[in-house]
């Protein structure tokens, strides 16, 4: 399945997730109309991924302040997620288990050759529409701060100029878009 486009309805999903000692089902429709930051990463217990997994955790409060839920997804099992979260000193958001690769396939980010997800981030608005998506090469970690910046810009619901940062003016035609 191809990558869904910005403006498309985000594919519905239901997957088990691990969060601070608890395992439960997470689904798009169960988010209760909140913003969603859904990020895919290749695997637990590797030396490249932890920086962004912990990066999202460090800024979890800032995302919560924007009324956003963060969900991390990889093809690892719940047990592996549990051990990995403990290894990283605890995480402030759930890690979903996509062992059957259905979630990665639905979002068009499954690397068929390696059978793991690409590094992909989606921001889904409260109406369930995709507002932002980015997929990067496995060698390049994504910017958590950029994701937060884009989320804040989207939440202004106004035109935001290039390199806009929270607190700066929006919607003014004199600004460079």
């Amino acid at each position, binding site marked *: 399945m191809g990558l869904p486009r910005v403006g498309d309805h985000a594919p519905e999903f239901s997957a088990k997730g691990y969060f601070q000692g608890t395992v439960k089902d997470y689904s798009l429709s169960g988010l209760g109309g909140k913003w969603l930051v859904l990020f895919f990463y290749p*695997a*637990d*217990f*590797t*030396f*490249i991924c932890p920086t962004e997994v912990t990066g999202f955790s460090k800024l979890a409060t800032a995302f919560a302040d924007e009324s956003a839920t963060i969900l991390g997804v990889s093809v*690892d099992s719940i047990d*592996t997620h549990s*051990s*990995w979260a403990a*290894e990283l000193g605890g995480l402030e958001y759930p890690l979903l288990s996509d062992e059957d690769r259905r979630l990665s396939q639905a979002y068009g980010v499954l690397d068929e050759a390696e059978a793991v997800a690409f590094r992909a981030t989606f921001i889904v608005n409260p109406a369930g529409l995709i507002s932002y998506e980015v997929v990067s090469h496995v*060698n390049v970690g994504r910017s958590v701060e950029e994701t937060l910046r884009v989320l804040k810009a989207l939440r202004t619901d106004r035109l935001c100029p290039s390199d806009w940062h929270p607190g700066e003016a929006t919607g003014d035609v004199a600004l460079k878009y």
Partner: protein
Amino acid sequence: MSLSEIQQKRQVIESRSRIREIVFGIQDGLISTVGLLSGVQGATENSLVVIVTGLTAMFSGAISMAAGSYLSAGAQKDIFEKEITEAEKMAEREPYIAAEGLLKALGDEGLTKEQSYRMVKTLLQERNVFLRTFREKVFGLGSADINQPLPAALVMGLSFIVGAVVPIVPYLIMSGVSAFYLSGLLGGLTLFGVGAFKGRLAGQSLWTAGLQFFLVAVGAAALGYLIGLIVQYFFPGVSVPA
């Protein structure tokens, strides 16, 4: 098994890797000398000529084989070392990718992701240990010291002499066709013995290993003889100068 036994085992493995030179040297020394002596014996009845020819061929052959072994082991060593250096440079330039490679290699061997991760994390704390494990596990570049050119050359040269002396000895004590037959017989027995010796080191059946060596070497000699017959058939005018 104690720790010292394990360390001794490594030395045994390294020394037994010389079996390649031993087998090669003895087999080549033996077959080439048997062939040469039977040809010379056919051409002259003079035992002294046969012996001197045999000894000359033995020493020149041994030197040539030793030199070849020195160069080939050296070439292998040089390339091996270059590959090791490149593997280590790569691991230093891209430590995370190297760590990922090692993770995958350990996973392929049956460790869980978590076990592999903890192992690699520990190894990363000691740069040299990590680099050595990386090149061994990811590229299969081991560190057992088996590519020493000088010992390889010495073993090859001596083995060639051992192999070549066997078919010469009968000509020292007898002459003519009887020396020729005894030479061939001793040659065959020696080949069988080398095979059985290898079988003992490799923990195989002595008879099977001995017979394998005997048949392959004699088969090679027979094939050479057959080619000679074919050449004679197509070029009837060609004959070995007396």
